[in-house]
């Protein structure tokens, strides 16, 4: 039934309608939406609409209410006030199933894939099969291949999701939406996990989808992308609509100011670390060889050194061994050969606990999977790794008063937005969970810090703040390794930049005189770039 009344915006709109589509009546309207959570007014009388064939961006700080609004649109939450309209008709969504049946799709900030299933199985999950109770994976696989050819998305339908890098999982999510032939797709921070190259490809796909006459809602903290991609931009602040505008009528700085409610200082970066030949080497890996999930070596004998008070940036395209590097040195993944040293003594093959005790902290890439326990309170997550320390526990009993005091200080220091310390961590917005983890990992004043994607999904204000803290930590003598797919971030933070490609270090550059082009070449596997620079 729903299918037939949505035929009017079917995928094959004539090309001439593209120009006129912006003038058309909105495909979907959200009118006066209000949503309260205990202690939080997440959405306050928000009105928002999307037209067929446009990208409408939602912009706002961490916790501004973007994901909440989109979850209402996807039937995950019911609004306290306000209503939805699809093609002018009131729409009531009791669950995501309702949304799916109206061909509304959502790619969540944290992916919703089942890692133990294959790509094709994930795509088919929850959809009726042509073969009744039996799944029809052959057909699904064929269609997945068709779609990936059509839109230029490379995905192997037979691969298991747990084997995929984040960027690849993203593509699976898009395939899933295309497979369901959505007319409206919500993309909650889809580019947070993509490399610049992947972002370009991704935007091509989005343009393709726009041309099909689909409506797209885009959420991102990266203002340049927003300016490039959007037809319209709506800024949310503290749950209220601050403004709706178009890229032509505004500037990056104006958008930033609208988001945070004040003019931001243009990003200043700290001076580089002053290293001398005497600066001790605090962290090093020698000849590190690590197996990947798919059997081949993810790291082929790599060497890296980080000095006290230095940030070593690891640049590279996602899936080239970064995750394995972080997991291996933190004891989460077996090491096939080589050594990892902290202050000259080997931590190779130690348990994660012993490695932490040796002074190494780790901000993991997948914050919801590894970094925090969603059902634990904010306070509990703050002491996940060190609740056994005597300041928090005596004779095996936890000292909740001490934990709370410690936690509330960190929450304040890092400006983590939470109603209180007992709130389940999964209720925080994505960026605030990241701040929580960052606060926890820096609290112990580590000798070595491994930070993977430290500002992924974090708003510009908070990203600036996290960068500031990383630089401070560096200046206090910590050896820091920042693994990031965001080249701007690496270039802004690092003192030296190691470029990784296919499990090998293509070269290490001095950040002071490295150029984007050089790094880009090395990321693509050209190792001469480094040599020619050195010469």
């Amino acid at each position, binding site marked *: 039934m729903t299918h037939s009344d949505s035929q009017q915006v079917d995928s094959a709109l004539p090309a001439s309608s593209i120009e006129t589509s912006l003038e058309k009546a909105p495909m979907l309207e959200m009118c006066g939406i209000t949503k309260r959570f205990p202690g939080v007014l997440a959405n306050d009388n928000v009105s928002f609409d999307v037209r067929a064939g446009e990208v409408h961006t939602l912009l706002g700080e961490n916790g501004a209410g973007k994901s909440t609004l989109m979850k209402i649109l996807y039937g995950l939450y019911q609004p306290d006030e306000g209503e939805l309209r699809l093609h002018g008709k009131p729409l009531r969504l009791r669950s995501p199933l309702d949304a799916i049946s109206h061909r509304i799709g959502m790619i969540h*900030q944290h992916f919703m894939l089942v890692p133990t299933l294959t790509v094709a199985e994930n795509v088919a999950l929850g959809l009726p099969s042509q073969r009744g109770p039996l799944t029809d994976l052959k057909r699904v696989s064929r269609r997945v291949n068709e779609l990936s050819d059509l839109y230029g998305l490379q995905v192997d339908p037979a691969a298991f999701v747990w084997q995929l890098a984040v960027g690849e999982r993203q593509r699976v999510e898009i395939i899933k939406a295309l497979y369901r032939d959505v007319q409206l797709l919500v993309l909650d921070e889809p580019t947070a996990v993509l490399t610049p190259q992947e972002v370009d490809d991704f935007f091509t796909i989005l343009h393709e989808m726009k041309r099909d006459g689909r409506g797209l809602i885009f959420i991102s903290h990266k203002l340049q992308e927003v300016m490039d991609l959007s037809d319209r931009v709506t800024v949310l602040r503290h749950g209220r609509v601050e403004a709706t505008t178009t890229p032509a009528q505004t500037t990056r700085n104006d958008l930033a100011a609208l988001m945070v409610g004040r003019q931001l200082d243009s990003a200043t970066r700290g001076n580089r670390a002053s290293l001398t030949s005497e600066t001790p080497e605090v962290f090093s890996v020698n000849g590190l060889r690590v197996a990947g999930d798919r059997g081949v070596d993810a790291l082929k004998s790599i060497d890296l050194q980080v000095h006290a008070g230095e940030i070593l940036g690891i640049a590279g395209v996602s899936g080239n061994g970064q995750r394995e590097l972080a997991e291996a040195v933190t004891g989460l993944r077996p090491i096939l050969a080589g050594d990892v040293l902290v202050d000259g003594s080997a931590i190779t093959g130690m348990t994660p606990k012993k490695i932490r005790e040796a002074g190494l902290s780790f901000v993991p890439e997948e914050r919801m999977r590894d970094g925090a*326990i969603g059902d634990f309170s904010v306070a509990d997550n703050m002491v996940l790794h060190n609740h056994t320390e005597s300041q928090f526990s005596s004779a095996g009993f936890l000292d909740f008063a001490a934990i709370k005091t410690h936690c509330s200080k960190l929450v304040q220091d890092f400006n983590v937005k939470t109603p209180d310390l007992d709130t389940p961590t999964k209720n925080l917005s994505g960026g605030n969970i990241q701040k929580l983890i960052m606060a926890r990992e820096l609290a112990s004043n580590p000798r070595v810090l491994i930070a993977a994607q430290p500002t992924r999904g974090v708003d510009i204000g908070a990203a600036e703040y996290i960068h500031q803290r990383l630089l401070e930590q560096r200046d206090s003598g910590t050896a820091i390794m920042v693994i990031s797919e965001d080249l701007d971030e690496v270039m802004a933070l690092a003192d030296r930049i190691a470029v990784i490609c296919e499990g090998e270090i293509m070269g290490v550059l001095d950040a002071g005189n490295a150029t984007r082009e050089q790094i880009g070449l090395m990321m693509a596997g050209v190792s001469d770039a480094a040599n020619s620079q050195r010469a």
Partner: protein
Amino acid sequence: MPRSLIVILIPVFSVAAALLLGAIMLLMLGANPISGFATMLSAAFGSLDGFSATLIKSIPLMLVGVGICIAFRANVINIGGEGQMVLGGLFSTMAALALPGLPPLLLVPVVLLAGIVGGALWGAIPGALKAYFNVSEILSTIMLNIVAVQLMNFLLRGPLIDPGEIERGTRIPQTARLPENSDLPMLVDRLNFHSGILIALAAAICAWVLLWRTGLGFRLRSVGLNPDAARYAGIPVKRSIVIAMMLSGAMSGLAGAILVFGSESHRMVTDGSTMGFTGSAGFNGIVVALFGALHPLWTIPSSILFGGMLIGANSLQRVAQVPSALIIALNGLIVIFVVSTEWHRKRLQAESKVVNEDVVDK
């Protein structure tokens, strides 16, 4: 708070629904449901004698149920309560037979401790198999139940048999009367109402304290909720799984010991089956725990209710000539209702809950 109200109303609703179906079954069996339920109620809770019998019945249910709660919090499912109870009974019996000379003040704790050790051992095996060899604990615990009953039959027919049985040639598979010093102290002598209930209550409270007030409980829960994050934070995930199963087994082992030393015959007897010794408490404890929302404190009233149902069922069988299998059916109905209403509750709560995307990761 409407939400907490819902949580309380669920068990009430599911009991009511189960009773309604039970009433229909009684009607079909030709008995008057109203008077049938009245009989059950008065037998279980209507008199001091009845209530004491109910409480005694609830002891092993409570202990096993508390053990289930602990394992569940670490995301381990312990179906091995039966076997762990048997081992607890055997270990405590052997301890009592080995140390008959100890004074009660020492011997009672020693035998209880022996029961705890026996159950913990029997829980540790599937725990270790799961943690280190990825063997499903559901299978291994069930298989160990079978091993336990064979071990019990072997020991009670051979090494542990009452020498008197051999002399008389009757060879009933049971131990001699265990030393009087090991008898559980009585609270009310006339009713044979022993102190086991206090031990079970203390165990439930300890389990709650353990889970929500200690570092160990913190680790067990973190492993249960998100093993990846626990591992990342340096929590020994495998060891925690073993510990959770050991604690769970220890509770069942204690239940087994109390069954032996609180029994009127003060000896361990076998009829060849686990059920003959445990009265199926190892399985019913799972129902009790589920009914108590897998919370050690809610397990207390839940076990008393189920103990009462079992006592009431016996008398219903006597008075109304209804097969006591009806009660087993009622048990099953309640489980089905609890589980399905649980689903409704989740739905109701879904609104105010972030769908935790990474739930699917597990």
